[in-house]
């Protein structure tokens, strides 16, 4: 394990701008967290290339429909850089008369799906995309573009007809396909996996997601902001609090408000509790998938324990109904904080016992070691985020690189492994459990009495804001533009799963089919977060 070095030259974007071959139309230091720049549509490819060559990462690409006010679509490329605690948001304008933009997926495969989503949802062509097939809408859907403003959300679509998706054929002696899903064998979400196998080893895996697409981004445009928080919590149930917080941060950035210190610290504690219950659950799920029932039983018992801690602090096992723009809806008492810390002390001892049991099993180690390897160079090309990225050498954690909530107050280790296998992903989780416990203890000690929320002023229209949270799975981004009457004009959501599904495809290659469940579990991606 290599521990993170605090790397800080906070203003590296300014230097990169000077080195950029292409001139930006504008460059505004919007606030402490964001730079807003604009480029001509024709300059996108050179700008992206130049920024990526200078070490920037293209975190997200998204669009919005501004036909009514500007007769154009707006396209956004969001970058970050290890040497800058700000995000760089590059805007370009696409005329409504010619809805097309230059694709950068060939150079930056990380945005492959995201560019295709723009095609599907807005009807804007990604020119030069190496694989421009539909991704977000299945092939049997009619030609609709749901995120355009002239498409009513309650449109009634006719029954679907025709092929739902055409999979790449496989030929050869002894080569066959194993279709799995969308209804899977376990208690998990729906998606279709199409394996091409030769004997037991997997030749390649084709994914078909978006079975759970339920128009969430469009739905955000219907709800008042205070109700939309609950929708944010329902993007991915296991990340309810992280998604809720990312959304609230975006709203707070748009409103230009600071939340009280106590609220920042309370959010930090809850974010870490969410990480704890999911990480320990995943450790148990990995044990399940290698047939280690006793470890799995202990892990699921510990997960239940943390869910109980969640409920005792907030009234909700999944930490729902707690976060709100301006802070938190509910406070808790000093007694509750103490009870939480005592409970976590018990958890820590139990977790150590669990890990002793798992580590004592050579057969478990044998199943995990060098299984489902994602090489660091692949991970970096695909823009893999979160746990999966850190297990494949990507030293990135928004908590440290773009501090939010109370993470700026403290220092903690970011575990990074180079191996990229299931074992490395397990180790990242185990190390992060230890770090989370330390973070909660430290923040709880600083949790002084004070206001837990500040009131949200009426939101003026046309403000934009970005919320970025390192959820337990990885980077969660919410970007909002406010509209009239306290509603939202647009809410873009990027769940880490959307970035990480292509990693699964690479990681399973050459592995045997019976190892697929454990490889899949080691990523544990959200279908609902991907499909929205």
């Amino acid at each position: 394990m290599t521990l993170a070095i605090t790397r800080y030259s906070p203003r590296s974007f300014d230097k990169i701008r000077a080195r950029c071959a292409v001139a930006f139309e504008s460059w505004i230091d919007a606030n402490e967290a964001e730079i807003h720049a604009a480029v001509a549509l024709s300059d996108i490819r050179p700008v992206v290339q130049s920024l990526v060559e200078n070490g920037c990462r293209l975190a997200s690409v998204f669009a919005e429909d501004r036909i009514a006010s500007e007769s154009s679509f707006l396209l956004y490329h969001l970058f970050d850089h290890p040497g800058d605690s700000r995000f760089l948001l590059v805007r370009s304008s696409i005329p409504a008369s010619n809805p097309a933009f230059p694709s950068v997926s060939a150079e930056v495969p990380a945005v492959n799906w995201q560019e295709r989503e723009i095609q599907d949802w807005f009807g804007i062509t990604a020119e030069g995309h190496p694989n421009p097939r539909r991704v977000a809408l299945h092939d049997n859907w009619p030609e609709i573009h749901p995120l355009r403003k002239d498409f009513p959300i309650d449109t009634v679509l006719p029954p679907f007809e025709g092929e739902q998706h055409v999979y790449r054929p496989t030929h050869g002696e002894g080569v066959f396909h194993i279709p799995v899903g969308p209804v899977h064998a376990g208690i998990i979400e729906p998606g279709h996996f199409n394996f091409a196998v030769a004997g037991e080893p997997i030749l390649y895996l084709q994914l078909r997601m978006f079975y759970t697409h339920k128009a969430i981004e469009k739905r955000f445009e219907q709800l008042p902001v205070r109700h939309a928080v609950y929708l944010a919590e329902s993007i991915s149930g296991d990340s309810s609090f992280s998604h809720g917080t990312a959304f609230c941060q975006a709203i707070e950035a748009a409103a230009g408000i600071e939340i009280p210190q106590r609220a920042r610290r309370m959010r930090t504690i809850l974010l870490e509790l969410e990480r704890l219950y999911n990480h320990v659950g995943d450790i148990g799920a990995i044990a399940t998938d290698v047939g280690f029932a006793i470890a799995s039983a202990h892990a699921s018992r510990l997960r239940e324990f943390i869910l109980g801690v969640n409920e005792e602090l907030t009234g909700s096992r999944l930490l729902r109904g707690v976060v709100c723009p301006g802070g938190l809806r509910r406070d808790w008492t000093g007694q509750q904080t103490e009870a939480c810390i005592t409970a976590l002390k018990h958890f820590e001892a139990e977790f150590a016992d669990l890990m002793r049991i798992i580590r004592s099993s050579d057969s478990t180690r044998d199943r995990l070691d060098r299984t489902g390897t994602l090489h660091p160079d692949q991970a970096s090309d695909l823009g893999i985020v979160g746990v999966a990225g850190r297990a494949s050498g990507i030293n990135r954690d928004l908590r440290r690189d773009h501090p939010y909530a109370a993470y700026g107050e403290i220092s903690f280790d970011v575990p990074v492994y180079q191996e990229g296998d299931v074992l490395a992903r397990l180790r990242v989780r185990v190390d992060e459990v230890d770090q989370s416990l330390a973070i909660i203890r430290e923040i709880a000690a600083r949790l002084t009495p004070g206001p837990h929320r500040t009131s949200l002023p009426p939101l003026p229209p046309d403000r934009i804001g970005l919320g970025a949270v390192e959820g337990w799975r990885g980077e969660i981004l919410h970007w909002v533009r406010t509209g009239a009457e306290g509603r939202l004009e647009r809410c873009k959501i990027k769940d880490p799963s959307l970035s990480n599904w292509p990693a699964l495809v690479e990681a399973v290659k050459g592995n045997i089919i019976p190892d697929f469940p454990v490889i899949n579990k080691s990523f544990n991606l959200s279908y609902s977060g991907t499909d929205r």
Partner: protein
Amino acid sequence: MFHIFQKSAQTGLVTFGYPQQPAQIPAQFRGAPAFDFSVWRDARPAAEVCPTGAIQIHDSAARRTVTVDYGLCNYCGECAEADTSGAVKITQNFELAVRKRGDLILTAEYALSPDGNSTYLGAPGPDFRTWDTSNLNQRDSEKLGAPGLDFETGEASNPTDAGAPGPVFGTWDTTTFNPSDSEHESLELKLQQKIHSLLGRSLAIRQVDAGSCNGCEIEIGALNNPIYDLERLGIHFVASPRHADMLLVTGPVTRNMELALLKTWRATPDPKLVIASGSCAISGGIFGINYATRGGVSTVLPVDVFIPGCPPRPHALLHGILLALGRMEQRESLLHSPAINPRTR
């Protein structure tokens, strides 16, 4: 190996006694809101803050009808915070599962006077359980404008007649099966008894996610952990619908999952039970009914039991599953004490 035995001995028995014993639930838990309609002078503040629209107000002339839909509620507790009259309280009640969708809806009528005050007139029926559900089905019929799939064949029921609202199961031939209400109820009862005798003691469940946020999956998965240990009740989850007696369905039923859900239902041998788990599986929940969702399992399949919650906690799921098996009645007297159940008010 030694660690493993040592740990097991240290840990001991961790399984809860529910449902034989009352559930141990933290005092902070937010269960169902309870409404004292007779002192609830003004429902508007609560209705305004309700994120899912579970509290609805309909004014006509001098009358105001207030409905509360537990099948749409996401149990956030905002209504109790917004209401100043003290008529809305958050209870610890989680045993909300019912057999009829209409049983999840409370309704109250008020007389409106010109000065803006309202006077409680009572509920429009002796028991809300028997209340006419035509209002409720309004939501259903909205989405029924969407042409459905025939749930026997999985094919488009009537693609040429896309816009016409029709009965829930468009292709059911109602001319040959049209019993009177009492006959219908006794038939239903007999069928239920038959199902209970067949499946009541040992049950295999196939869980189907029809587009949920995965919150319900977290709680359903928890039923397998040593705390809830579903298998002690003879109930277990199976990998194939062919082995299943019951489908436990979550999610608002996305258009993309509709056919898969139907196929799973058809692959499940008769007799079978269907449970809709979670508010979005009951009504579409916060996602509503839109171009990508159907708005609840009952728009696609006949549902035996509805379990409200967002998500329903494991105890609530267990309660709903046992209710579907007819095993809950035996415990009715113990578990439905008036103190915790807003519906027995």
